[in-house]
């Protein structure tokens, strides 16, 4: 059951619904009344947010396939642009990324919209060999009335390093999901997210990490802000299976509701079936400090500017964790602009 199955078969019954536990806050069946026609072929527009910091670009426009393969020991930075240039139509993309033993990839992924009312579905399979390194930075800018679902299945090798930062502003419905099988074995995972959701937008950052072997780490930090009637959903599940001893897992989710109408739903879960495990988690949903807002306004900032500056500082902690210097700057600028457009 998935959006991609529904788009493939045209069968609405394939859509996940609120009766599916993992989809209860991001129901698609009640939202999609008919499967729209397939999106037409189209050409790219603009050059994407990462153009200035990356020389190699792959394009996927209105669906299609892409294969990224790094041979053992190779080192690359690649921009992957997933473009929706569609009006009221639907498309699916599948992307395979393999980073062989000892190779290092920085994947700068943008989900770009030049249209409206479309449905887009992206499925990715990411495989890291032993001691491989992948940093994935996702900037997802969908149209306000689009439905956008992304699922990445990630498998990583011993001693590898997988780091991900997802930045999202929501859509009519947006879900970005990561499912990661963790072998332990000295492999290190960082799984971060930032969401900035404005009026009538919805985003859902869902992840599952399953520690299957001894001695692995997962460090997860998601921060978000919702304004207007925006809605943010965070679902994070870290499972430490029997035998995955000496796992070190951290999960943090912290959200701000910028005015009284926004909503944040969160479900952080740490399921531990192993011994000698270090786990920490924190989950908070709050508001900006009224005193700080008054202080900033007394110095001359408008209410909107004060909120934007303080929210920017709040999410800055996540953006600072991006390792690629250029991507970090792009992410910071992107977030700063999106924040100032939040209503």
């Amino acid at each position, binding site marked *: 059951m998935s959006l991609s199955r529904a788009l493939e078969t045209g069968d609405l019954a394939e859509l996940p619904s609120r009766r599916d536990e993992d989809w209860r806050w991001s129901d698609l069946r009640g939202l999609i009344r008919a499967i729209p026609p397939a999106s037409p072929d189209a050409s790219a527009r603009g050059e994407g947010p990462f153009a200035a910091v990356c020389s190699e670009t792959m394009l996927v426009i209105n669906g299609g396939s892409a294969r990224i393969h790094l041979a053992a020991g190779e080192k690359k930075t690649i921009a992957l642009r997933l473009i929706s240039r569609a009006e009221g139509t639907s498309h699916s993309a599948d992307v395979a990324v393999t980073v062989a033993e000892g190779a290092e990839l920085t994947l700068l992924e943008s989900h770009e919209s030049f249209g409206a009312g479309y449905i887009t579905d992206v499925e990715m399979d990411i495989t890291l060999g032993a001691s491989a390194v992948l940093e994935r930075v996702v900037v997802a800018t969908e149209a306000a009335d689009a439905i956008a679902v992304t699922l990445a299945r990630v498998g990583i090798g011993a001693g590898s390093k997988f780091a991900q930062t997802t930045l999202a502003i929501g859509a009519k419905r947006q879900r970005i999901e990561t499912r990661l099988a963790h072998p332990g074995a000295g492999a290190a995972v960082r799984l971060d997210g930032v969401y900035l959701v404005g009026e009538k937008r919805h985003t859902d950052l869902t992840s599952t990490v399953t520690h299957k072997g001894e001695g692995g780490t997962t460090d997860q930090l998601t921060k978000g802000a919702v304004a207007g009637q925006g809605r943010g959903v965070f679902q994070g599940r870290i499972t430490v299976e029997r035998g995955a001893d000496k796992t070190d897992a951290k999960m943090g989710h912290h959200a701000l509701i910028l005015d009284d109408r926004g909503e944040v739903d969160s479900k952080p879960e740490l399921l531990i079936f192993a011994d000698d495990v270090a786990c920490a988690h924190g989950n908070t949903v709050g508001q900006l400090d009224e005193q700080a807002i008054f202080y900033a306004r007394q*110095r001359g900032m408008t209410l909107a500017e004060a909120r934007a500056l303080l929210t920017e500082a709040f999410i800055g902690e996540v953006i600072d964790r991006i390792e690629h210097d250029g991507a970090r700057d792009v992410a910071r600028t992107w977030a700063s602009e999106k924040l100032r457009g939040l209503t």
Partner: protein
Amino acid sequence: MLEIQNLHATVGGTEILKGLTLSVPAGQVHAIMGPNGAGKSTLSYVLTGREGYEVTDGTVTLDGEDLLALEPDQRAAKGVFLSFQYPIEIPGVPGLTFLRTALNAQKKARGEDEVSAPEFLKRAREVAKSLKIDFDMLKRPLNVGFSGGEKKRMEIFQMAMLSPRFLILDETDSGLDIDALKVVADGVNALRSPDRSMLIITHYQRLLDYIKPDQVHVLAAGRIAASGGPELAHQLEAEGYDKYAA
């Protein structure tokens, strides 16, 4: 410059200011002294438009313009500055970033050009030096982990950078040792000019040895109970506020 007429204000439903009348002409420095809980900080918040401080009667004008009708940031753009009794910590925002954002917001509101980054930094360096503030401190998140004295110095730094017209200093002397007090007083005195006015709220007359006021007022029980020259401050220091008790 500032005219306050019969000001009544409530906080959480309790009336704190009960008919306060005060006039501060351009170029003058007035001190407000009074016992704890008299309503001094309340006055500073009412003048700057803090939420929860409700004006129930009276008027406040700045150069004839109704101040109470303006948002806090609009008042700031008109030149009203409050040095807070308890400055707020702003995690994650470097002092320089905070201040430049504020300065440019004020300039935008006044229809002026923004200040360029190099220009801003140059002035910030000069002002920091004059206030004996380590420039690296300005790169740290504003007020986070600063000592009481450092926070007060940062208030004066912001004040000097924003060059306001009407300055309110709420207990700026508290938490300062004598050397810091002199530095702060020098910073404040440097801002004295014929087109600026100041309201210095203080508990002790010590600060007034360094910032000489034109007039001293006693605020007790929500109104001005007495006014006089600088000698009134010394008299209050000697006699206390007992005779003004409500």
